[in-house]
């Protein structure tokens, strides 16, 4: 079935630590655990699921062996707390299958015994979707981390769902290829998690979303049935496109065990520019012009405001290569000829500075400096955690209104919060609007929600651009989806997971 040029890879193991969701390695100022979700959100009631008992554990141990069944509360802790430390479950059971067969047997058993399950990848999700709400069993894909094949000619990668994104990218580099997506969590997030959240990331502008790049999926349904849609064909219009059911469904319809994904060639020339500008309007002007003048090589266009960069510089001691400005733009180009690209960039910068849009900046193709600049953008989310509690909203707004949410919220919240700021993917109209406080506050929450969703909905934006719905947002999904659409989603859920064991309390209201 494999075409020519396919190289079979041995069993490779990623050892990337990246931003693993271990508190110790993130160096928190206060490693205190968040309140249990059941206490913080008392209106959410545990479903009619069975409670884990010794017989269940025995089945799992017989299936996976002692080592791949975690039962000790301290071992289970990191699987219970989300990356943002917003929610915490109290599961006593983490399962680590190594094969699709094992996933299938686990789910079929759980389905039969009405045991609720929370599938988990790298646990970097930002909407509380990846951890148990109550005592759901955590199904961790971490040990399903093998690359199955890489086709140098077609650029198609087939791998297991637990492969860490950065690891895949490193391996693909040996084939002159790269992953079509990149995001700040790359050192920990897994391709199965990316697919399940339909993750966007830093280069969506150029390489499109996973809906286009994922060619095939193997998934296991709630009842344990294995669904092989692992076609590695670029074109395949035979029947309904079932793979799309799993892209972005956040583990509520099935567990993604394998993925076939179309990977672009690794670019020969990469350049990165970091610019300081006076106003948000100047960012839009820069973007419009960049699209026109750098169109075919532009691969990323991101913005950061002063407070966001302040968090990275202050908490993480990352230095900015340029002076302070109210706003910053980071743009990247990828092309095949460095001289051509630099020529274009240079002319573009000259023009954009010439009319006063850009005040200050730096441009480089030196990997170490590019890394340092990317850190300013990619480590923002991490930096906020040092403030204390993070209220994070991931919304799409019409571009000209992109930053208005920050201005409006600053007025509403005043000085009662530490930070009220925004950064994000200008190229996709997607802002990560963030409020931080020393600790969680119901009062602040009430002043933000549902206002932020109403505001977004009025502007015809999306209340979740790329992070999904998870546990934090089901009650708000109606701001972005019609009743009919939500109804069909519920019907699909019923069809595919009649007992509702997969990620209960999440995604759907």
């Amino acid at each position, binding site marked *: 079935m494999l075409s020519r040029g396919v190289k079979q890879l041995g069993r490779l193991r990623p050892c990337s630590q990246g931003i693993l969701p271990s508190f110790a390695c993130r160096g928190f100022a206060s490693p205190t655990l968040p309140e249990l979700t059941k206490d913080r959100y008392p209106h959410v009631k545990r479903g009619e699921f069975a409670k884990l008992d010794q017989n269940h554990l025995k089945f799992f141990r017989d299936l996976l062996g002692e080592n791949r069944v975690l039962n000790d509360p301290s071992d289970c802790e990191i699987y219970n707390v989300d990356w943002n430390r917003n929610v915490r479950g109290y599961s006593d059971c983490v399962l680590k299958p190594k094969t699709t067969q094992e996933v299938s047997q686990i789910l079929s058993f759980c389905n039969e015994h009405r045991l609720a399950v929370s599938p988990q990848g790298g646990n970097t999700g930002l909407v509380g979707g990846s951890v148990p709400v109550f005592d759901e069993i955590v199904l961790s894909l971490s040990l399903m981390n093998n690359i199955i094949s890489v086709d140098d000619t077609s650029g198609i990668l087939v791998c297991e769902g637990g492969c860490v994104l950065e690891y895949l990218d490193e391996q693909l580099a040996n084939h002159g290829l790269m992953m079509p997506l990149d995001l700040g969590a790359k050192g920990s997030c897994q391709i199965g998690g990316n697919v399940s959240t339909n993750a966007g990331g830093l280069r969506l502008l150029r390489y499109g979303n996973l809906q286009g790049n994922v060619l095939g999926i193997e998934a296991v349904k709630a009842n344990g049935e294995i669904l092989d849609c692992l076609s590695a064909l670029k074109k395949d219009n035979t029947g309904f496109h079932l793979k799309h059911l799993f892209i972005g469904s956040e583990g509520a319809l099935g567990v993604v065990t394998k993925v076939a994904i179309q990977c672009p060639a690794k670019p020969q020339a990469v350049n990165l520019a970091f610019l300081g500008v006076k106003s948000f309007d100047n960012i839009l002007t820069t973007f419009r012009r960049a699209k026109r003048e750098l169109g075919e090589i532009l691969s990323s266009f991101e913005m950061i405001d002063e407070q966001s960069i302040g968090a990275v510089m202050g908490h993480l001691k990352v230095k900015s290569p340029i*002076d302070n400005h109210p706003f910053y733009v980071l743009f990247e180009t990828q092309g095949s000829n460095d001289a051509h690209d630099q020529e274009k960039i240079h002319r573009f910068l000259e023009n954009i500075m010439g009319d006063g849009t850009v005040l200050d900046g730096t441009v480089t193709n030196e990997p170490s400096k590019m890394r340092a600049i990317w850190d300013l953008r990619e480590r923002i989310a991490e930096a906020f955690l040092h403030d204390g509690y993070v209220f994070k909203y991931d919304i799409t707004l019409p571009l000209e209104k992109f930053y208005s949410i920050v201005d409006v919220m600053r007025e509403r919240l005043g000085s009662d919060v530490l930070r009220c700021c925004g950064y994000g993917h200008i190229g996709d109209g997607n802002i990560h609007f963030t409020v931080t406080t020393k600790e969680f506050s119901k009062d602040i929450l009430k002043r933000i929600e549902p206002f932020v969703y109403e505001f977004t909905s009025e502007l015809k934006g999306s209340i979740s651009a790329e992070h999904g719905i998870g546990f934090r947002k089901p009650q708000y999904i109606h701001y972005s989806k019609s009743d009919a659409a939500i109804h069909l989603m519920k019907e699909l859920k019923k069809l595919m997971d009649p007992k509702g064991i997969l990620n209960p309390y999440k995604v759907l209201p």
Partner: protein
Amino acid sequence: MDDYKFLFKVVLVGNAGVGKTCLVRRFTQGLFPPGQGATIGVDFMIKTVDVDNEKVKLQIWDTAGQERFRSITQSYYRSAHALILVYDISCQPTFDCLPDWLREIEEYASSKVLRVLVGNKIDREDREIPTHVGEEFAERHNMYFLETSAKEAENVEKLFMQIAEDLMKVSRFLCDN
């Protein structure tokens, strides 16, 4: 659009460590940065100055001296109005490399570009290149000449203001004719 009549692009080149970045920061920010690291790639900034009650914008490009960090090599010369070629008066090799830099300038820059030779770090006691040697070199190659100290803020303002004034004169002349 801002209100200004003149916009000039000024590019600084020269060996690593001669003080290009310090000259720029002294001029744009009025400070001498402690522990200034090597420039990687190209940094650029805008500084508006007044010449004869006219607003003149200087678009300053600070390039990397180290070969391996020179991400943008040729294109930055092309549309420059002025080129500042810097050496370190306490470091002979930075002076010896000037002909190489000139060759690059000849090849890529416009023939009308204003060229300024700058001997930096005159605050230092261990001078290796006497002023007249620099002067002669500049004269021979048809360049302006100035000695500066970014550290002591000596001649830095003068360097950029002189360039602004000169470029303005030239462009006024061209406009009038």
